[in-house]
């Protein structure tokens, strides 16, 4: 069996940044396993611009952003295997994978970084009634067909869900000559960025119908049309508001789910809110030496933040391999983070003050749109942070920065609470 110091599962933005970071910490034996035929992950199909403003201080397209990190991987001579599917990871870090050249093989890793990303929620998760004709795609599938394969899925399009991929595809399909009739969103607010609503919908006169959903699908072999209806406060269709749209294509942009079958299989504990692993301040899961970063951990809005998180995971995994990572047996104690009022989750979920960097970003999402509120952090009963925000929304990830100094000042600290309060 081959041995590596760090095996990284996935060669998308998270895996690439983690690999470069681990190598920069002095780890020689780093291996990336990627199931696609090229590195870069989903960035390769995101041909629009807007990536990299934080990381490179310029606006890049997805393939260009991936290209920068792939170049770093090549410069560092980091090993990677393409067209390689990881089948299983054992608790003691034996990775079982397969590809056409080597067949089925096993690799023993000292540390594993989970960087598998996420996948799209499909029609089956939505309970839309009606037939199952051809012409219904997830927005990301359509994106791949148009941008990489060079096929148009259809000519008359309705999009359900106003996530960013759906908005981006509304513009893309329009530019390629399709007619996008409407974007419908179940919630009373869009899950996408304001910039995308203006530049992908308003620029092309595509209507966005909030609090609307698809209640019927017409067509047996090929999609012929869909019926939209307005929904009430509980998401139930309101009778009498139905409206028929003829179309040959329905795109679904209704959320992303971290892809954690491998993690679950090896016994990594998952958080039901994020569907990603529960991690500590070092992005380590409940299994020692197994780290997670990027969209497999929690779905991000910006790839720049994925790269930043992955860099930390790579560095921490390197510290673990080099035995520079204090273990709980050495007296390291963890403080749990709890969420209240309006905050849905935090990453990480616990912090070891001795092990944390001088500054630690705690990232989280809120459950609704709140205006004029404060993000507050309590150390037990004492309020440490009270940050005023004009608006917070589920579609925009938030963060607070905690310092090592703050935590070390309170040795008896039991719980850190993150919540929203009135301003």
């Amino acid at each position, binding site marked *: 069996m081959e041995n590596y110091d760090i095996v990284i599962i996935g060669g998308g933005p998270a895996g690439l940044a983690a690999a470069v970071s681990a190598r920069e910490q002095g780890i020689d034996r780093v291996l990336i396993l990627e199931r696609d035929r090229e590195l870069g992950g989903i960035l390769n199909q995101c041909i629009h*611009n807007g990536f990299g403003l934080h990381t490179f201080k310029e606006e890049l*397209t997805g393939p260009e952003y991936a290209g920068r990190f792939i170049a770093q991987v090549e410069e560092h001579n980091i090993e990677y295997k393409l067209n390689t599917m990881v089948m299983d990871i054992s608790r003691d870090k034996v990775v079982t994978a397969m590809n056409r050249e080597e067949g089925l093989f096993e690799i023993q890793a000292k540390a594993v970084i989970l960087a598998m990303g996420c996948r799209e929620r499909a029609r089956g998760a939505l309970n839309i009634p009606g037939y199952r004709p051809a012409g219904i795609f997830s927005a990301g599938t359509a994106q791949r067909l148009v941008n990489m394969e060079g096929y148009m899925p259809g000519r008359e399009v309705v999009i359900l869900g106003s996530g960013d991929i759906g908005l981006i595809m509304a513009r893309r399909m329009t530019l390629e000559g399709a007619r996008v009739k409407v974007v419908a969103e179940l919630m009373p607010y869009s899950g996408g960025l304001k910039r995308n609503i*203006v530049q992908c919908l308003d620029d092309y006169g595509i209507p966005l119908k909030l609090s609307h959903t698809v209640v019927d699908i017409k067509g047996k072999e090929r999609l012929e049309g869909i019926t939209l209806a307005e929904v009430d406060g509980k998401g139930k269709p309101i009778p009498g508001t139905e409206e028929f749209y003829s179309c040959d294509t329905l795109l679904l942009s209704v959320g992303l789910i971290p892809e954690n079958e491998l993690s679950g299989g090896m016994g990594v504990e998952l958080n039901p809110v994020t569907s990603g692993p529960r991690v500590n301040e070092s992005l380590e899961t409940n299994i020692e030496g197994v780290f997670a970063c990027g969209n497999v951990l929690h779905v991000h809005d910006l790839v720049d933040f994925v790269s930043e998180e992955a860099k930390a995971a790579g560095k921490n995994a390197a510290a673990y391999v080099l035995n520079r990572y204090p273990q709980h047996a050495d007296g390291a104690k963890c403080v749990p983070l709890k969420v209240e009022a309006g905050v849905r989750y935090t990453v990480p979920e616990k912090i070891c003050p001795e092990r944390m960097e001088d500054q630690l970003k705690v990232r989280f999402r809120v459950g609704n749109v709140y205006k004029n509120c404060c993000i507050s952090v309590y150390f037990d009963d004492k309020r440490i942070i009270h940050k005023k925000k004009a608006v917070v929304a589920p579609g925009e990830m938030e963060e607070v920065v905690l310092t090592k100094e703050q935590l070390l000042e309170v040795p008896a600290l039991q719980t850190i609470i993150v919540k929203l309060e009135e301003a």
Partner: protein
Amino acid sequence: MEEKKLICINCPLGCALTVAMRGNEIEAVKGNTCRRGEIYARKELTNPTRIVTSTVRVLKGCDHMVSVKTKEDVPKEKVLDCVKVLKEVTVEAPVRIGDVIVDDAAGTGVSIIATKDVRRA
């Protein structure tokens, strides 16, 4: 005096901006909660521009398509013209990031460049 309405794109607040115009001159911007809103409104109503991204068919490459973009932003009303120009274009692999695909896109004076490497098959 004419009133124009637009949504600010700088942050999730999405302020509804109302702009008072006299001909092509902006008299006042209302509804913004910060300075960025006014800057955005002035640019968007006097000289709106966009980066255009699309794809071009590749011959003899590992991929069927190569992604491309305008090297700089172009006037908003030229976006569709830029895309139309690309419909007629094919390139032969290999293609490198930054290779010029079209010299002058639809009379904008801006070139269109490749944004992905495509190796020869």
